C-alpha cells in the first residue's frame, strides 16, 4: 500500500494540515486563556468607542471625541495621500534620473549614477530621520521663518496661502477632473482616427486648453471666489493659510527620493532593453533625441518596465509605514496608538496587515490589467 505514490501524497498533505491545525489550535487556546486573564474581549466593538487622542493631520473631520473607527479612517487616508503623492513624484524624478543615466553627456551620466548609488545604499528610515531632523531642528522657529512671497518655511513646516472654502473652488476642481477625463477620451479617439485615416488630430494642445478652460469656467460659474487665507505670523504661530507639517514633508521627500533611485534603474533597464535597431530606425527617420525617446523608445520600454515598477509602487506604499518613526499619523501610527490604549493588539495588527494586503492585491491587479493591455500583440 505504501508504494502507491498517490496514497503517500495524500498522507503527507493530511499530516501537513494536521500540523498546521494543531499549531493554530494550540495558539488559539493560549490566546483565549491569555485574553481571559487580561479581561480583553476580542472583536471590533472598540471601533465605536471614543478615541480620546487628537490627530494633527486629517483629511476628514476628526476630533478626540470621535470614535476609534474614524481615527482609523483618518490614518488610512493619510497613508493613501502620502503614498499617492510620493508615487507621482518618485516616478517623475526616477524617469528624469534614469534618462540622465543614459545621457550622451558624461557629467550628467555620472551625476545621475552618483545619485542612485548614494541614495539606494542607505536605509530609508535613516534618511527619513535625517530629513525630519533637518526640518524640525535646523529651520528657524515661527517668529524668524524664512519667507518667500507669502510662503513661510519654519519648524512648523511649510505654510502657504490657501483658498477659503467656497463652491467655486470645488467647481474648478471638478472642472479639472472633467478636463482630464475628456483629454483621455480624446486621446483614445485620436488614436482610432489615426489608425483609420492615417493622420491623427492634435491631442496635446486641446487637452491643455481644456485643463485650463474647464476649471476656469467652473470657477467663474460659481461666483469666481478670490478670497485666499494668507498666513500671518502672530506670536508663536501662524494665523490663516495652510500648514504642511514637517512630518509630511520629510516622509514625502524621503519616500520619493528613495524610490526614485530604484525607478531610475528600472527606467534605464527598460530603455536599454529596447533593441538598438529601434533607435537606429528612429534616427534614420530624422527624429530628434527627445522625439526618439518620447515616440519610439519609452512606449516600448514601458512594457518591460511595468512589472518591476509595480513592485516599486507597492514597496513605496509599504514603506510609508515608516511614518511611525517620525510621527506622521499614518495607518500604522494610529493603529499603534489604538492598540496601546485599548489593548486590542490582535484586531489592530490584523487590520493593519489586512489593509496593506488589500492595497497590494489591488495595485498588482490593476497593473496586471494594464500590463495585459499594453502587451506585445504578435501575429
Amino acid at each position, binding site marked *: 500500500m505504501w508504494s502507491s505514490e498517490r496514497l503517500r501524497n495524500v498522507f503527507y498533505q493530511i499530516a501537513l494540515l494536521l500540523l498546521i491545525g494543531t499549531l493554530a489550535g494550540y495558539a488559539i487556546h493560549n490566546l483565549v486563556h491569555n485574553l481571559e486573564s487580561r479581561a480583553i474581549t476580542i472583536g471590533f466593538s472598540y471601533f465605536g468607542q471614543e478615541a480620546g487622542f487628537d490627530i494633527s493631520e486629517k483629511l476628514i473631520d476628526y476630533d478626540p471625541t470621535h470614535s476609534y473607527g474614524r481615527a482609523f479612517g483618518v490614518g488610512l487616508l493619510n497613508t493613501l495621500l502620502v503614498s499617492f503623492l510620493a508615487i507621482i513624484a518618485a516616478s517623475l524624478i526616477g524617469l528624469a534620473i534614469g534618462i540622465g543615466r543614459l545621457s550622451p553627456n558624461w557629467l550628467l551620466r555620472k551625476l545621475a549614477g552618483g545619485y542612485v548609488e548614494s541614495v539606494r545604499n542607505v536605509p530609508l*528610515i535613516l534618511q527619513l530621520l535625517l530629513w525630519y531632523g533637518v526640518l524640525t531642528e535646523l529651520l528657524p522657529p515661527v517668529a524668524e521663518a524664512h519667507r518667500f512671497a507669502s510662503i513661510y518655511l519654519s519648524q512648523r513646516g511649510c505654510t502657504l496661502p490657501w483658498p477659503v472654502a467656497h463652491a467655486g473652488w470645488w467647481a474648478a476642481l471638478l472642472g479639472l477632473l472633467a478636463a482630464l477625463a475628456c483629454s483621455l477620451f480624446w486621446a483614445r479617439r485620436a488614436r482610432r482616427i489615426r489608425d483609420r485615416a492615417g493622420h491623427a488630430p492634435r491631442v496635446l494642445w486641446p487637452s491643455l486648453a481644456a485643463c485650463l478652460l474647464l476649471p476656469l469656467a467652473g470657477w467663474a460659474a460659481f461666483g469666481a471666489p478670490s478670497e485666499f487665507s494668507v498666513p500671518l505670523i502672530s506670536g508663536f504661530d501662524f494665523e490663516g493659510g495652510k500648514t504642511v507639517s514637517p512630518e509630511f514633508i520629510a516622509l514625502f521627500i524621503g519616500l520619493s527620493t528613495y524610490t526614485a533611485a530604484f525607478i531610475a534603474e528600472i527606467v534605464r533597464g527598460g530603455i536599454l532593453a529596447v533593441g538598438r535597431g529601434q533607435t537606429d530606425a528612429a534616427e534614420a527617420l530624422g527624429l530628434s533625441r527627445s522625439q526618439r525617446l518620447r515616440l519610439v523608445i519609452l512606449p516600448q520600454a514601458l512594457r518591460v518596465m511595468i512589472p518591476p515598477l509595480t513592485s516599486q509602487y507597492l514597496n513605496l506604499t509599504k514603506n510609508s*509605514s515608516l511614518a511611525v518613526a517620525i510621527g506622521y499619523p499614518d495607518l500604522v501610527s494610529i493603529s499603534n496608538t489604538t492598540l496601546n490604549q485599548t489593548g486590542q493588539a*490582535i484586531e489592530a495588527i490584523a487590520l493593519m496587515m489586512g489593509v496593506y494586503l488589500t492595497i497590494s492585491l489591488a495595485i498588482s491587479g490593476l497593473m496586471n490589467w494594464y500590463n495585459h493591455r499594453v502587451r506585445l500583440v504578435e501575429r
Partner: protein
Amino acid sequence: MNSHATARRPASERSRDWLRQNLFSSPANTLTTLLVLTLLAWLAGRFFSWAVLNAVWGQASVATCNALMGQGACWAVVADKWQQMLFGIYPQAEQWRPALAVLVFCSILVLSAMRACWRVRRLLVLWVGGSLLCAWLMAGGLGLTPVPTALWGGLPITLMLAVFGTLFAFPLGILLALGRRSSLPILRAASISYIELVRGVPLITVLFMASIMFALFLPEGVSFDKLLRAQVAIILFNAAYLAEVVRAGLQALPRGQYEAADALGLGYWQTQLLVVLPQALKITIPAQVNSFIDNFKDTSLVIIVSIFDFLYAVRQAVISDLDWRHYFVEGYLFAMAVYWLFCYTMSHYSQWLEQHLSRDQRN
C-alpha cells in the same frame, strides 16, 4: 577601429577628443555640461566648506563646536561617542568582544564572497561556526563574563540580525520555493499563501506582531527574549523573499534536467538535492546577494520596536546627550557612511558576480 592611431596621437589630443565627444558634442550637450558644472560646483563647494574646511575634527569640546555652529560640521561628536555608537551600552571593559564579533561577521561575509568557499560544507561550517562564535563572544559564558542581551547593542546587533536572518531564512525559503512548485495542492496552497501574505505586508507590521502580539499566543508565563522575537520575525519575513529568489532559479532550469533525473531513477528528494537545487541556487547567487543587502538595510526598522541596533545606538548616543544633541546631522551622516560602505561594497560585488557568472556560463 583605430586603436593604433589613438595610441600614437599625443595625450592632449586624445583628451580633447574625449572632451568633445562626451561633454561638448552639441550645443545642447555643452549647455548641459555648463549647467551641471555650475550646480556641482555650488553644491560640492558648500558641502566641502561645511564638512571639511570649517569642520571641527578630532576630540573637541561642545563649546568649540557651538562657536562654529551653522558654518562647519562638528565631527567631534563622532570622535566623542564612537564607542557608544558602535557598541551601544555594552560594558566598556568588555567592548573588545563586540568589536571582535563585528570582525568575525565581516570575515564571514568576505569569505563567502570568495569562490573557493562555494562548497556546501565549507559554507555551512563558515556560517554556522562563525555565528556560534559571535553568539559566544556576545553572550559570554565558558570563560567569558556573561552579558545579558539587554546590554547588547550597536553594529554587532545589526550584523547579527542580517546574518542570522539570512542563515535561518535559507532552509525555510528553499522549502517554501519547492512547496510552491510542488504538485501537491494543499502544500502548494499553504506555500503560496505564506509567501504572498508576508510579501504583501510591511516588515513593521511583522515586527509589531512579534513584539506585541506574539506573547498572547504562548502559554502564560512563557516568554522569549525581545531580541530573539525580532530575530525570528526577520527570519520569517526574509524566508518569503528568499523563496521567490529560489523559485526564479527553479523556473530557469530547463525541463531536461528534471527528465534526466527521472530517467536515472532518482526520487523527489534526490532529484532536488543532487540535481535541481545546486544549479538553481548557483544561478541565483547575485539575486541572493541583493536580497541580503535589502535585509541588511531592513534590519534598521527594529528601531521602531526599540531594539538597540546600530541606528538606534547612534541616535541614542547623540539625541540623549543634551550637550551634543544639536549635532545629530553629523551622527546620522556617520551612520549613513557605515551603512553605505557595507551596501555599496556588496552591491558592486553582486554586479561583478553577475557578469562573471554569465561569462562562465557562456564558455
